[in-house]
């Protein structure tokens, strides 16, 4: 192995450092001082280093190396190319913020030992990095499953709670089944060469049928990890169960590895994807986006709400992937690049915004010990830092300009809009409907986020205990700040980001090198005539107007500001319970999209002195798909168990019949 400097080696060194930091935590596993206060900042430094390395290396050509690990004929191959660099940058930058936050977050006496947490956390990070760098099926699978395993242990940190255990179980089960599917996909792709390196897979020529099988298996496996509907059921369980920094990592970063996997398989390993695969990805993506967002709207648990929102965003990302495949398969290179850029951009965005939000909920959880939206409220007074930083994430994920969420949405809609020339009429008709669904989902995301922020931070505290809530500590704020700044930066300087992503897209889609058009401040995918977006200018104008208005009004009208009780509309007693609950806020969505939900209502009787209306919203897919599946397995198991009767004569009969049958077969 060559040890001279290369970006690849440097990245590997960072991953190694993460591993070492994790192990260092086990030296004194009970010491919070070492594990949390010393090692996590180190991990954050590594994250920053990784992000810097990855960003610097994006435009450089691919590098590869072979590690002295792995199977005898299949040592670990690693390769860094532009696509990997993008995701490495995402991993490094997002994890840096999360690690800083974790420094202050983990406390004594919460579930597992700090040292163990430190180990699992850093192994999780390192394995995600290795997933991105792996260049053979074995290394990929090892990293992939290590990632699942370490995150499983992180999810079950508080394993004494039965719900968390079952969430972890469901998570690992679906992850494992998905992993087997990915593995089988690799089995197809190696194409009889018995070489499991990605190079061999690139060189293998598959018949269209086999290529489709490979894509289908990969889609299933990665979709299970990404939480695509209908494989999403684990996600709203597992993500909330984990400690908040881990939820942030899982939602913000881990889901993106699945996106990376799909991109890697369909564009790199399979060569040229067939266009109609894109429709599959597109359909699943749209379904997930829609399904995720309407379920997010009716959640009452803040972390669960965010988890459903992750499903939505993954759906949007897969919509982009689908578009890319459709365009690429139809030979429309420029549009494919645009769609791919939108996809990658949304991956980056979601990493930052979702991390901010999850970390924000983590701070709230710490301050109040409460995850239920129905018991929160008014925290903006107690926790201004967390509230305002979270607000940035909220606005970003709702897709509002000038923050980052809007940029990727804008790019995606542009890709949809210019799709009119796909040489297939049917697809042409279908795509606008897709754009409509994306638009609907974005609007619904706004709804969800207003609910999220409004119920937690605004209004009056719904419980007396909230008065004692305290703001997040300094390091936690720092972590949040880092990520929120990421949201702002990605929102205000899209051109710089996109120029880099363009390199990646061209590399991945094998398009001729070219330059991204437009000025440094103006985002214009095709030509400024068609569409352009300059967030800096827009933001600047708005800011100036706001400032002018504010200053002007203050300068001219110097009337007093008095404080008084809120107007009670003639009611005598206006208390916090009269505010909308989370259930109440979700009511319109429940009403409009009723067929999608499985609702159990608990109506109070008129004679109840403390009436409480309760509604639980269940996932119809769970009852329609998973419960029957479980029942079938149980039914089969019961039937199979009858074979084992306990009677020795029966067993002998089995042997006898087997013997006779085989002999008859041979004769």
């Amino acid at each position, binding site marked *: 192995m060559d040890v001279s400097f290369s970006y690849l080696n440097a990245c590997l060194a960072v991953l190694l450092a993460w591993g070492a930091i994790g192990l260092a935590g086990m030296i004194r596993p009970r010491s919070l001082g070492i594990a949390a206060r010393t090692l996590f900042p180190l991990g954050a430094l590594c994250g920053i280093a990784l992000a810097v390395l990855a960003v610097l290396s994006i435009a450089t050509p691919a590098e590869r190396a072979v590690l002295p690990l792995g199977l005898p004929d299949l040592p670990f191959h690693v390769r860094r190319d532009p696509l990997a660099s993008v995701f490495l940058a995402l991993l490094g930058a997002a994890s840096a913020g999360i690690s800083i936050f974790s420094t202050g977050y983990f406390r004594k006496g919460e579930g597992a030992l700090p040292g163990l947490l430190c180990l699992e956390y850093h192994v999780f990070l390192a394995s995600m990095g290795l997933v991105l760098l792996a260049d053979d099926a074995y290394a990929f699978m090892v990293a992939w499953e290590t990632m699942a395993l370490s995150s499983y242990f992180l999810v079950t940190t508080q394993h004494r709670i039965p719900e968390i255990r079952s969430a972890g179980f469901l998570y690992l089960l679906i992850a494992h089944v998905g992993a087997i599917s990915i593995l089988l996909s690799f089995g197809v792709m190696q194409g009889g060469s018995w070489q499991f390196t990605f190079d061999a897979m690139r060189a293998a020529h598959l018949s269209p049928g086999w290529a489709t099988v490979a894509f289908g298996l990969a889609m299933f496996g990665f979709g299970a990890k990404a939480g695509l509907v209908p494989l999403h059921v684990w996600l709203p369980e597992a993500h909330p169960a984990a400690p908040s920094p881990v939820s942030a990592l899982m939602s913000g970063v881990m889901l993106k590895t699945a996106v990376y996997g799909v991109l890697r398989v369909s564009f790199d390993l399979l060569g040229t994807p067939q266009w109609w695969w894109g429709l599959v990805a597109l359909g699943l993506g749209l379904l997930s986006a829609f399904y995720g967002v309407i379920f997010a709207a009716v959640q009452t648990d803040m972390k669960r709400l965010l988890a459903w929102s992750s499903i939505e965003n993954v759906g949007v990302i897969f919509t982009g992937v689908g578009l890319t495949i459709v365009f690429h398969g139809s030979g429309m290179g420029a549009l494919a690049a645009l769609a791919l850029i939108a996809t990658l951009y949304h991956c980056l965005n979601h990493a930052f915004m979702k991390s901010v939000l999850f970390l924000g909920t983590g701070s709230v959880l710490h301050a109040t010990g409460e995850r239920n939206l129905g018991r929160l409220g008014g925290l903006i007074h107690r926790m201004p830092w967390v509230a305002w930083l979270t607000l940035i994430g909220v606005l970003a994920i709702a897709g509002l300009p000038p923050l980052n969420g809007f940029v990727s949405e804008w790019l995606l809609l542009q890709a949809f809009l210019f799709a009119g020339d796909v040489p297939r009429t049917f697809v042409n008709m279908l795509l606008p409907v897709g754009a409509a669904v994306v638009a609907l989902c974005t609007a619904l995301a706004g709804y969800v986020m207003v609910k999220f922020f409004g119920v937690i931070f605004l209004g009056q505290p719904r419980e007396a205990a909230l008065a004692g809530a305290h703001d997040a500590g300094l390091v936690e704020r720092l972590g949040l700040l880092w990520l929120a700044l990421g949201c702002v930066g990605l929102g205000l300087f899209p051109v710089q980001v996109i120029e880099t992503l363009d390199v990646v897209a061209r590399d991945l889609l094998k398009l001729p090198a070219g330059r991204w058009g437009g000025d440094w401040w103006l985002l214009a995918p095709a030509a400024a005539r068609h569409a352009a977006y300059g967030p800096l200018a827009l933001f600047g104008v708005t800011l100036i107007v706001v400032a002018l208005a504010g200053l002007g009004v203050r300068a001219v009208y110097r009337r007093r500001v008095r404080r008084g009780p809120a107007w009670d509309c003639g009611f005598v007693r206006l208390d916090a319970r009269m505010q909308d609950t989370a259930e109440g806020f979700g009511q319109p969505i429940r009403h409009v999209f009723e067929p999608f939900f499985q609702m159990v209502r608990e109506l109070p009787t008129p004679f109840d002195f403390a009436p409480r209306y309760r509604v639980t919203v269940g996932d119809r897919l769970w009852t329609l798909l998973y419960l029957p599946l479980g029942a079938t397995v*149980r039914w089969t198991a019961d039937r199979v168990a009858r074979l084992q009767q306990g009677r020795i004569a029966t067993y002998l009969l089995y042997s006898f019949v087997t013997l006779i049958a*085989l002999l008859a077969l041979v004769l």
Partner: protein
Amino acid sequence: MEVLLLLGSPLLGALTLWAFGARSWAPGLNVLFSAATFAAACALTARVIASGPMVLAREQFLVDPFNVFLVTLTAFVGLTTSIFSRPYMRVEAEHGRVSPGRLRLYHSMYQLFTATMLIALTTNNLGLLWVAMEAATLSTVLLVTLYRTPASLEAGWKYFILCGVGIAQALFGTMLLYFAAERVLGAEGVTALLWTHLDAVKGQLEPTVLSLAFVFLLVGYGTKVGLAPLHNWLPDAHAEGPTPISAVLSGLLLNVAIYAVVRCKVLVEGSLRSALPSQMMMGFGLLSVVLAAFFLWRQRDIKRLFAYSSIEHMGIITFAFGMGGPVANFAALLHMTVHSLTKSAIFFAVGHAAQKAGSQLIENIRGLVTISPTIGWGLMLGSLAILGMPPFGVFASEFLILTTAMKQQPWATPLLLLALGVAFAAIFGKVQPMVFGETPMRRLPHPPALLPVFVHLALVLMLGLYVPPYLAGWYRDAARLIGGP
């Protein structure tokens, strides 16, 4: 010389312990003999590394790449199990579950069992192989019934009868093989059962006879492997015996049986030049995997659970050997190694867990990680390893097997996917609450010595990330030897 030491040490051990097995230092002696055996195995290995395969003692013994690592593995797991059994059996004796007399039987039979397995592995004579296999059954029957509970007697009886009958079929198969070989190798019958000679002339052996012989051999030794539907003795025997015995039964004896099947398969396939033996093995393998996965679902007894898991893994190995070819054979050999290491490690952890809980029922074992992190993590990691989670070695072999299957036998992969999924749900769904969660059990004052568990797991982990070159070389040579379509 090394072979003599290898076989002599456990035989001598059996005799010695028959005499002194009830003494307080007998467990130590047991460890000592196992260590001597292991040392001999190491020496043998060193010699094979230095000078290659060899045939010894008037061609009655054979050491080639296929069995040398199995010998070392057997000796190694034998040693670690004896280390584990020392504190384990002491606690059992304290609880009054075994009398000193039975401890004598236990120690002596333990050594004898090791000896028979080693003979079965090293012998070149297919007849002796049969004799050793039968002897292995007999020596373990009494170990299975060590506790003399009704359930253990029942298990022992089923074990005895089913394996006895099964292995009788194998004898008939061996006889048919001899019959076919005699026609080629001459009537004197001195060499006609020697595997090396048979292998040399396998192309001339009569296909009709060999195909019949293979059916008998497969059904016979397959019973010992635990292939469905011949597996019925296995869960009972594994669950009711003392845990160290479960560990060696699952980890070693099944390997030896599958070794016997594969040795025979090589000859038959060479003669038949058809895919019939392969197809039979694949069929048995798949059936075992699928049935075992569903059986796992209903288990309430922890040792039974892992016994069924052994059936599942034997099914995978058989399936892989059935597919044949360098990759699948390689994977199957690797799987044999890692399965035996992992499964014995699990049984060690399970043994301690059941001892602490005072019950083998899964519902009575809760929150192990709270009362003893080592047992809890040992069981958790072991289960994850056996379920094929990387970076453990089981994953490495399953990786190769599944990818090969996807290419060569795509029809089988949906079944494998189903079975692995169901098995994962079943085992992990039961292990998780045992390891995690609240517990009614008291926290242990002292951490139990679980060195063997973690040594095994470390080895399995290593095999997932790095296979030593000479080991890989043996696997490759053996895979070539086993051949396949």
